[in-house]
């Protein structure tokens, strides 16, 4: 259990540092690359939480697809690649105040309510053969079949909508 704690804190520190780079760096591409580090760290945390299927999906969808889209967006909008004067607007201190207040309130509420509640040692929900992937699929194609189909239609609509919005001839 101690090894898990060390793993957690090292990954968490890297994630928070990379997230700060994402929101403060002046170089857009460097922000995007730091965001990849955050996504990989989130995937590692999912593995600590014994959700390996979600972790693999995170790597495939976020690092594989969404980051490529983001880099395409940076490239196509020619967002002054390389160093840039200011990527932060004049009222950035509003953001600092909001974020600090929010983290204070949420941190107080979480520590007050959950305190030292420990996660169960065996975190694999209803495992079959040491993996919870089949449990996930049972839930998606059983109890949550209708939301799953709605998500499919939403993805199709988003795909068509993105093409219609972004195409040149109209």
């Amino acid at each position, binding site marked *: *259990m101690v090894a*898990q*704690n060390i793993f957690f804190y090292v990954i968490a520190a890297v*994630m*928070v540092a990379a*997230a700060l780079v*994402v*929101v403060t760096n002046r170089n*857009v591409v460097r*922000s995007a690359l730091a*965001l990849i580090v955050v*996504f990989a760290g*989130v995937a590692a*945390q999912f593995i*600590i*939480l014994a*959700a390996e*299927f*979600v972790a693999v*999906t*995170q790597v495939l*969808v976020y690092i594989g697809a*969404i980051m490529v*889209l*983001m880099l395409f*967006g940076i490239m196509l*909008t020619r*967002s002054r690649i390389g160093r840039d004067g200011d*990527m*932060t*607007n004049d*009222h950035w201190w*509003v*953001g*600092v105040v*909001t*974020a*600090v207040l*929010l983290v204070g309130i*949420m941190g107080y509420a*979480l520590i007050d309510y*959950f305190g*030292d*509640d*420990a*996660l*169960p040692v065996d975190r694999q*929900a209803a495992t079959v053969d040491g993996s919870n992937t089949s449990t*996930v699929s049972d*839930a998606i194609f059983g109890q*949550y079949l209708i939301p799953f189909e709605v*998500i499919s239609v*939403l*993805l199709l609509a*988003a*795909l068509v909508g*993105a*093409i219609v*919005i*972004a195409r040149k001839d109209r």
Partner: protein
Amino acid sequence: MDDLLINQFLLLGAILFCIGVYGVIARKNTVLVLMSIELILNAVNINLLAFGAMNNDITGAVFALFIIAVAAAEVGVGLAMVLIIYRNRASVDLDEIDSMRG
């Protein structure tokens, strides 16, 4: 300090969420604002899976998967909109997109 606490994950999620909120408020470039929104969505996913692990329930993982799918759709449409704004105004600076100002 032997067991993993639920609060470790929840506080990590809260910190990531607030960093994302700061990015949404403070950044000028529209693509960077979209990246900050991705940070917020990831923080929510950590929370969902932490609660799922606490209650030994698979629902958290299922909803995290749904959020990943919705995030993919959101990024696709969002970047298409950023692209058309860039094409029309030759800028992705949020301070210059002020045609709604009264």
